[in-house]
């Protein structure tokens, strides 16, 4: 019985920590780009969804529906194959992955922004207008600061999703954690230890963030009660 058990050996993984470190840097780079672009563009689209003019509202809605209702991996591969054909330049795996994940996250966070903005009592906008602010000023000075506080748990959740999504970039051979894990596993024939370590690394990175989300939710629940 004892001889049929698998003997775990993490030494080959630990000897190649530099390979995994290079992957971790790639993961963090892609994550940072997608958070900034995804949330930034998401805010723009969210404001567009809130707009009354149809020529702003309709394109924003079409964008949100399209990117929410197609799989991210399809979007990444689409950009990877389509851009070099449609445009006169090559596209790196990083750019293709960043485009797919950022646009997908923009669509999801747009709905968070819209929900947050619409949750603020109408009287606030009216009062700000009555004080002589332009609609843009009312949005920036009065509505958004209050809405952002309420949206924080949902946005943190989105951030966690983006972090997990970065692994999809391995499908187009972008150097990130999972891609480096694939490399190590095939070089050392030790998929068990390698993928276990990768899983643990992601868990250790994200579990604290998940706890932060729970804490934020509890605090907001108390503050709004």
């Amino acid at each position, binding site marked *: 019985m004892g001889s049929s058990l698998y003997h775990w050996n993490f030494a080959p993984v630990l000897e190649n920590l530099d390979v995994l470190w290079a992957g971790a840097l790639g993961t963090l780079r892609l994550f940072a780009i997608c958070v900034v672009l995804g949330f930034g563009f998401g805010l723009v689209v969210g404001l567009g969804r809130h707009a009354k003019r149809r020529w702003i509202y309709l394109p924003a809605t079409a964008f949100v529906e399209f990117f929410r209702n*197609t799989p991210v*991996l*399809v979007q990444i591969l*689409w950009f990877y194959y389509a851009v070099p054909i*449609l445009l006169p330049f090559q596209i790196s795996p990083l750019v293709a992955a960043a485009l797919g994940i950022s646009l997908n996250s923009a669509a999801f966070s747009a709905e968070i922004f819209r929900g947050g903005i619409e949750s603020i009592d109408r009287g606030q906008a009216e009062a700000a207008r009555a004080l002589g602010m332009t609609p843009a000023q009312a949005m920036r000075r009065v509505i958004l600061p209050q809405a952002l506080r309420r949206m924080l748990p949902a946005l943190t959740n989105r951030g966690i999703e983006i972090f997990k999504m970065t692994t999809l970039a391995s499908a187009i051979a972008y150097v990130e954690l999972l891609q480096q894990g694939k490399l190590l596993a095939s070089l050392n024939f030790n*998929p068990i230890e390698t993928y276990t370590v990768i899983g643990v690394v*992601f868990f250790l990175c994200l579990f604290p963030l998940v706890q932060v989300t729970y804490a934020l939710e509890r605090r907001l629940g108390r503050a709004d009660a």
Partner: protein
Amino acid sequence: MHAWDFAPVWANAGLLALGLVNTLKVTGAALAFGIPLGLVLALMRLSPSRWLAWPAGAVIEVFRTTPPLVQLFWFFFALPILIRVEMTPYVAAVLTFSIQSAAFFAEVFRGGIVSVERGQWEAARALGMSPRQVMRRVVLPQAVKRMVPAFLERAIELMKTTTLVAVISYADLLFETNEVAQKTFRPLEVFTVTALIYFFVIFAASTVVHGVERRLAASGEGMAR
């Protein structure tokens, strides 16, 4: 300018249809296993016994906070060596997505069960029901109705996540798309058609979900997740 030519895509429509059927097959199987497993995990997590609550909590947190692609790689490449079984891409996919979606379903179940007013428990207990009878006859029937929208939304997420199986060569819609793209040298057209197929299937499902949500809200049974 690129001259779009969809003829090679139509010539291979059969392969794409086969891929779509396989996508639905994985989604259906993962739902069939994931929902009951999710209920079991939720009941364990709510149990007063730490021996039940703790392992269920660990499974739920681990599968919610690690990327699904890492899980899939672990089940496909690592598990077969560990327990010495043959692993097909289909089995690995169903196993991964069942447990992964069970972790998310468990939280939906838990939220629904917790949302049923405490007085209902006390009343049913006072009528002489055992805790198990209270759960089955009083709490779950009410909770399930409130959970329906969250369930359907999760099922849609699951369908989008199943695209990952293409990476381990299961012949789902995305995998067949890649095959057809390489065969016809028309990646742009094939990936565009596939994105549209996913969009129409998932958008139709989302529309149904929103309809159900509205009806439940109208009957006073709607619940925010």
